[in-house]
């Protein structure tokens, strides 16, 4: 690696928060050679984003660099005068951000946004710039590049915007592209397309890529070398295949072990009356309404039927806009369906008040965002005790005992009851949300993306807790998720949704090993799987790779 002169050489970089002196990036060293793809992997708080931002001189004002050097193409970035730094940004080093919804200026035409950087850094006339832009837009796969020039960002989907963002960065043919979680906000299927486009484009231009991500699978798939960061330290770095197969540092091992993996299929009792069943569920969202106009309603669910057996975990997967969240809300009773029925223990819940109330008390929900699902003004004890208010004939002492018991069950023992949500971490909050959902001993729990807001290792712990509670209390579960890895780990049965319809349904093994519908295949082939090799390492594989196309780990 050192044979070629490194394009980027970071040495002993240390960043501290000015006010408290807390070290956020500690003695970090790594290098990127020309044309190479290097991944920085870490969980939130690992300092990966700050380290990458420092490369462009973009650290927030509160953060100070206390030592180290950053050499870009032999030039020291840390002492560069602002003017020189500005010339370097964009033209030599490009950056793609996580959030395609906000990284393009919503009030500016695409054409002008792309032109901005070119006009600044390249000596070309307007016609020449336009030709370059059109060429690049065609290259990133926009169907109508000419039309895109005079369109606004909101007219494009998230995936398209990220392509446009990529186009705007690659127009200048930078020597280094820093991509900070470039596909985290995108759908699985779109994710792979964008990543592959990024790799193609950068390889064609000889651009090196520094890919920052929490997603080990993705990083391993596209990067030749990986830098693993944990709480400001680089704990391990090396070739991708070495790190995957023979992780040295305990943290890397932990990270790899936390990747979701398939467990042997569970034996469940033979089909009885389903505990919850939906029959031809239709949900329409009302169109925009004013005093004088009424737009046509939009159909979000086109007649969904499903059954959840006692003790069974049924996963609903699909991309954004597939209607999976709407389905969860309708089954939870948060939305009144336009048509169809929900049956609880065989009884339709909308027909009688008692059946509805019976269902209401037996069905609970865990939400996606642990930061907004807990009332910030209530203590943990109050939050967990709240559902018990409606349980008939429960004394105050019994309630207290139950709250303490459930808090212990979710692994939060003494002293948590009097704390407030903001004092807890995301993982702890999600434990509270789970405690609140199971405190009434429900027979059915709906979990809407319960772990997608959590870090990899925390996610593994919460999933394990959830599975354990599910075994112990035997509640059935409707598990809504876009993350196929998680679904593969928890589900007994899988329902694949696309555009408000169920496209495929079957046992977990059927869906994952032998998908029949084209959309399911597309979904599965979009995410790399990681398989434990038994000795602490993992093997990367593409699902359906043997059937669709061969793919090997690069490097």
């Amino acid at each position, binding site marked *: 690696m050192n044979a070629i002169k490194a394009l980027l050489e970071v040495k002993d970089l240390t960043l501290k928060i000015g006010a408290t002196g807390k070290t956020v990036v500690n003695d970090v060293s790594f290098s990127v050679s020309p044309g190479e793809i290097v991944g920085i992997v870490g969980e939130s708080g690992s300092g990966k984003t700050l380290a990458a931002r420092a490369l462009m001189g973009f650290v927030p004002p509160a953060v100070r660099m206390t030592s180290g050097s950053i050499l870009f193409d032999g030039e020291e970035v840390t002492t560069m005068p602002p003017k020189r730094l500005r010339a370097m940004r964009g033209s030599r080093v490009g950056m793609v951000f996580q959030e395609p919804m906000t990284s393009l200026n919503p009030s500016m035409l695409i054409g002008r946004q792309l032109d901005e950087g070119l006009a600044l850094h390249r000596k070309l006339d307007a016609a020449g710039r336009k030709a370059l832009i059109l060429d690049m837009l065609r290259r990133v796969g926009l169907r109508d590049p000419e039309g895109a020039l005079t369109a606004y960002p909101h007219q494009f989907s998230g995936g398209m915007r990220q392509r446009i963002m990529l186009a705007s960065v690659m127009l200048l043919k930078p020597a280094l592209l820093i991509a900070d979680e470039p596909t985290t906000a995108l759908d699985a299927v779109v994710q792979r397309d964008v990543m592959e486009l990024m790799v193609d484009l950068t390889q064609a231009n000889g651009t090196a890529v520094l890919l920052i991500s929490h997603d080990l699978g993705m990083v391993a798939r596209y990067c030749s070398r990986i830098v693993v960061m944990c709480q400001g330290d680089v704990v391990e770095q090396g070739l991708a295949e070495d790190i995957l197969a023979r992780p040295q540092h305990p943290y890397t091992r932990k990270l790899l072990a936390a990747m979701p993996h398939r467990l042997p299929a569970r034996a469940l009792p033979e089909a009885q009356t389903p505990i919850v069943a939906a029959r031809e569920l239709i949900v329409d969202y009302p169109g925009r309404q004013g005093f004088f106009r009424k737009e046509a309603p939009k159909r979000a669910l086109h007649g969904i039927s499903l059954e959840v057996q006692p003790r069974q975990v049924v996963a609903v997967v699909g991309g954004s806009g597939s209607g999976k969240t709407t389905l969860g809300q309708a089954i939870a*009773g*948060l939305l009144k369906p336009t048509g169809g029925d929900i049956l609880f223990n065989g009884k339709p819940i909308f027909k009688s008040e008692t059946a509805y109330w019976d269902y209401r008390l037996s069905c609970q929900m865990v939400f996606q965002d642990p930061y907004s699902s807990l009332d910030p003004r209530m203590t943990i004890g109050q939050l967990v005790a709240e559902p018990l208010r409606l349980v008939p004939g429960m004394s105050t002492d019994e309630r207290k005992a139950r709250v303490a018991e459930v808090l212990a069950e979710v692994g939060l023992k003494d002293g948590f009851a009097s704390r407030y949500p903001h004092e807890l971490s995301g993982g702890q909050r999600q434990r509270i949300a789970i405690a609140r959902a199971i405190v009434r001993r429900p027979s059915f729990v709906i979990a809407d993306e319960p772990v997608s807001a959590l870090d990899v290792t925390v996610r593994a712990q919460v999933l394990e807790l959830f599975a354990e509670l599910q075994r112990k209390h035997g509640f059935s579960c409707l598990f809504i998720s876009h993350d196929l890895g998680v679904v593969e780990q928890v589900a007994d049965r899988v329902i694949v949704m696309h555009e408000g319809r169920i496209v495929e349904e079957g046992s977990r093994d059927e869906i994952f090993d032998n998908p029949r519908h084209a959309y399911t295949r597309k979904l599965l082939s979009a995410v790399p799987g990681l398989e434990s090799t038994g000795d602490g390492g993992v093997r990367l594989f593409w699902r359906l790779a043997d059937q669709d196309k061969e793919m090997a780990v690069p490097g």
Partner: protein
Amino acid sequence: MKTPAPNALIGGALIGGLAIVAGIGAVWTPFDPLQLSFRAKLAAPSAAHWLGTDEFGRDVLSRLMAGAATSVWISLLTVLLAVTLGTIIGIFSGYVRGWFDRIVMAFNDALLAFPGILLALGLLAVVGANKYGIIVALGIAYTPSVARIVRGTVLSLREKEFISASRVMGNSEAFTMARHILPNCIAPLTVLATSLFGWVLLAESALSFLGLGVPPPAPTWGNMLAGSRPYIGQAVWLGIFPGLCISLTLLGINLLGDAVRDRLDPRMRGMR
């Protein structure tokens, strides 16, 4: 709790001082606030008249003390009325949505289009210019702005997952509003209520200025300030002291309001 925050200390001292002065003023003042004395017209502050006398020779300190109770009482009740009405309307509108919301908010916006003082003038013409008339008129005049702000807060709150969680639990709509929505509106409400207190103090003086306030000769800070205007060149203390009283009260209320808001918010506790 460790040492109280400085804003709580200063605000508390100012408001406490005000309460004491108003309390004393209600039962005893150095001079009779209505006693005319043409020999001591527009007298500068002196040992006898600490804060001077006005154009009729009435003692300014006595009038300020007597007026404190009236002014503060009017403002307090007005703010209470506006905040209560506005919160109820705002929460229902924001939470229930639909036709109820649209009609109520259309009406609300129509009222907002009038300057508060103009609306109060119109209402005063109906209810009559006296202490309680002013409270009702100003209270109603300021309700729409409270309702707007509360509704906005509720609109963002009702999309939060903890509201969905409350509904999934089986809580009734009324319980959800009272237990989850209302407490989370308190932060913007305290800020609003404290600034409202200031507007009302000033609005009351504006009404007095237009002759629709508390009828003279009864003193309020507002009509004292308004009455000082012609004499600003000869007797500057006539305007300064009521003005100072109003400013210090506002400062105290604002500081105290911030302290109360922080105290009520669990996220702010233990930060200092």
